[in-house]
């Protein structure tokens, strides 16, 4: 292409509006596309975070395990000895349900104080891996020699059941 043709192309006014409109339209499409990309990424990140949280909670629940070492009833008080034999720390007890062998609820308690075996209160209010502790439920009226079941609910939502004879 010689210089004369380049000069003619730059100074020619024919179809200028078509080029401009095409450039504007293309630019607008690209801009909108980027906005859509960012929005979609934001939405997928939110989904990822939500899904990740749910999954991590499930994994933490899977790692939880409480062993009932002993449950002793005397004088209206039920003392339950527990051990965290799972593979995750910070296992706390948020609710306890005592029911009969037929499933009739006798007592539900959500204010549980965990104690060390030596009688002192557990400072962080939870059981770490391998840690042992107990709690006491008072004002129970159980029949001696009868079988009852106890359900312990942890802060992560796991439930552990145990049967004992009062």
């Amino acid at each position, binding site marked *: 292409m010689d210089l004369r043709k380049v000069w003619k192309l730059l100074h020619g006014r024919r179809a200028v509006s078509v080029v401009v409109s095409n450039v504007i339209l*293309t630019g607008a*499409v690209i801009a909108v596309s980027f906005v859509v*990309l960012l929005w*979609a990424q934001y939405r997928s990140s939110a989904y990822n975070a939500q*899904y990740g949280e749910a*999954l991590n909670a499930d994994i933490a629940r*899977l790692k939880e395990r409480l062993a009932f070492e002993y449950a002793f009833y*005397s004088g209206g008080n039920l003392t339950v000895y527990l*051990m965290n034999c799972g593979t995750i720390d910070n296992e706390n007890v948020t609710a306890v349900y005592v029911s009969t062998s037929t499933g009739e609820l006798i007592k539900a308690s959500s204010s549980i104080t965990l104690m060390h075996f030596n009688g002192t209160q557990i400072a962080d209010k939870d059981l770490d891996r391998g840690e042992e502790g107990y709690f006491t439920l008072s004002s129970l009226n159980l029949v001696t020699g009868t079988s009852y079941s106890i359900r312990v609910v942890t802060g992560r939502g796991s439930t552990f059941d145990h049967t004992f004879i009062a």
Partner: protein
Amino acid sequence: MTIRLLLRKRFRKLIANSKGFSSVIGTTFMVLVMMFLSTSVFLWTLSQNTLYNEAVRARNQEESDRRNENVVAVSGNYSVSGNEVTVNVMLRNAGSVAAQIINLWVLDTDPSNRRYANKSLNLNLNPGNVTNLVESSPLTVTIPGANASHNFASWFVTGRGNTIPLEKEQAVIVAQLAQGIGSLALDFATFRFFTYANSTMLANYSDGIKSFNVPSRTSIAFGVVLTNLDPRKQTITLNLYSQVWLYFPKSPGQSTVFYIVNVASDGTITTPYSPITVAFGETKLIVFASNVAGGQTTVSISSSVENLPCALNLLLLGTIGTRDYGQNIPFVSLYVYKP
């Protein structure tokens, strides 16, 4: 016009035509965005699922280990001294995984004294390992109000949360045997003798020297561990005439007697003799040291029986419950050496 020329002409026309260019770009972008997002979400979800599967696999493994844990507690029995309840037991890991024993629970099941106690432990058992807690390190817990006539239940707790109940099989057999040969059983393996730190104090009390070879011409005393296995669960009281009697087959007529004595925790022999009681199930170290009944005169084996074997008999006298009691326990042989 050939088909090839026709296609080339149409392609040039398509390239030259600017109509719908933005739509093409937009569509391309959309496709790229969709591919990028779906791929990233898919890969991320895949990684999360891998994490979850890993957690499930680990949980299954733990559950499998927990189910494969198989520790048995056999040959168990209880002895009571005051509020102290001692559990004698043999632990055997019969499972395929190592086990850690972290706790012992003992429950007094007597209706008059429903109390319990626990003791923290740290016993590690590999598969096939046997830990004999009968001889080496008995487990003692404190239960206020415990009595030898009470029945006890106990169990161990493992680190995986399993509980191992104690089986009292052998205690029953021993108690049945006791009905035939007498209510006091001698622990053969813990037989010992003592030398003196001074004229009234035993050296290295209460361990002594666990041997069946004893020196002559040296003041010594004997220590035997007795357990009351009376089938009627009565308390036995030993009076001052209870003694250890040595006789020498190769030296007829030669015998040596060691009378029962009271010994303080530091090894000092106290006088006068105060009758020793052994409650049912209780295991006690009884010391025989005196040349005279009820007193404290040291005894040594004569040099005339050096390098000779002898038989040792326990002649136990006193009361069982409200009745008189007498039992002769043989079975121990000694060799007297020249020091």
